[in-house]
């Protein structure tokens, strides 16, 4: 068929590479999507790793009970666990914490986040108390200082009081055995 455009002078034909560009772009974009499928967009990386635990002095869980301060975390490896009586996943995690406490490997300190007075105590009475010391963070000051976005979250602190690892979500027995325990052991070896 005759090409009317050619009769009057050809419009510049577009080169092959231009025709291929859209397909190439699509592959590139799909590549990023594929990688994106392996990531969790909700998870924020922790900025507190290798930084000193912030200064804090939490209110006691109940009258007369000893409270938690950052000085308590120095001198030994420890785990700080952020929980709340309103947090369902914390109930799921709690037996594992009790187990860890019973094994005596590492002390666990509890931060009762955003709880009414008395609620934390009642919850610990009901589900058990694995914590060496506990304190209440009623207005999220410590939580914000730690970059907490939800409960439960746990931090592994070294002998110098520095945050070395953050775990978001409940601690299961696999996570304890495969991830946290090795870290604790390393830090103990480091500290001694």
């Amino acid at each position: 068929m005759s090409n009317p455009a050619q009769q009057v002078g050809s419009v510049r034909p577009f080169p092959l590479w231009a025709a291929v560009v859209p397909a190439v772009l699509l592959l590139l974009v799909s590549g990023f999507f594929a990688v994106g499928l392996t990531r969790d967009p909700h998870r924020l990386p922790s900025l507190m790793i290798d930084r000193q635990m912030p200064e804090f002095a939490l209110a006691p869980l109940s009258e007369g009970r000893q409270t938690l301060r950052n000085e308590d975390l120095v001198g030994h490896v420890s785990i700080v666990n952020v929980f709340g009586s309103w947090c369902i996943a914390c109930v799921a995690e709690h037996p594992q914490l009790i187990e860890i406490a019973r094994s005596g490997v590492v002390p666990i300190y509890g931060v009762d986040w955003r709880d009414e007075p008395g609620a934390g105590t009642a919850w610990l009475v009901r589900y058990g108390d694995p914590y060496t010391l506990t304190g209440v963070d009623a207005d999220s000051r410590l939580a914000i200082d730690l970059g907490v976005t939800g409960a439960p979250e746990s931090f592994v602190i070294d002998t110098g009081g520095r945050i070395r690892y953050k775990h978001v979500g409940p601690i299961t027995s696999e996570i304890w055995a495969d991830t946290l325990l090795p870290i604790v052991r390393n830090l103990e070896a480091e500290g001694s």
Partner: protein
Amino acid sequence: MKHLAMALMLFLASAPSMVAAYAQEPEFDPKVEAAAREVGKSLRCVVCQNQSIEDSGAPLAADMRRLVRERLAAGESPDEVRAYMTDRYGNFVLMKPPVQLDTLLLWLGPLLFACLALAGWLVYVRPRTQIAAAAEPLTEEEQRALARHLAEGAEL
């Protein structure tokens, strides 16, 4: 007795500060409030992640709002308050992504696209002016006829 009275007076004198210590909100200052809302709108809620802390109903957002107001009332600038938050949560909490090396493409992208579009126009479309003109210059008569034709037909 005198000591007891003294103790009682001291206790009463310290009462207002105790109330202040327990009071959750700092004093209401309209200028601070306005600045706090601006900062609040520029920070992303880390729980729901698609609202600012100003709009979010999450409890953590409420605590963050209070923190923002306290720090502004204490004299910090909005940028300093934002820096406090990004220091702990990262750049994710900023609604407006920072301009840094790895966001250069993001910020320059639109300009780049516009330049590409302009380049495409200049290379593929503009040369047509010569072609169309060379193709068929319409005579006066034809132009008028065409104009009439177009106007009558109310073409679209």
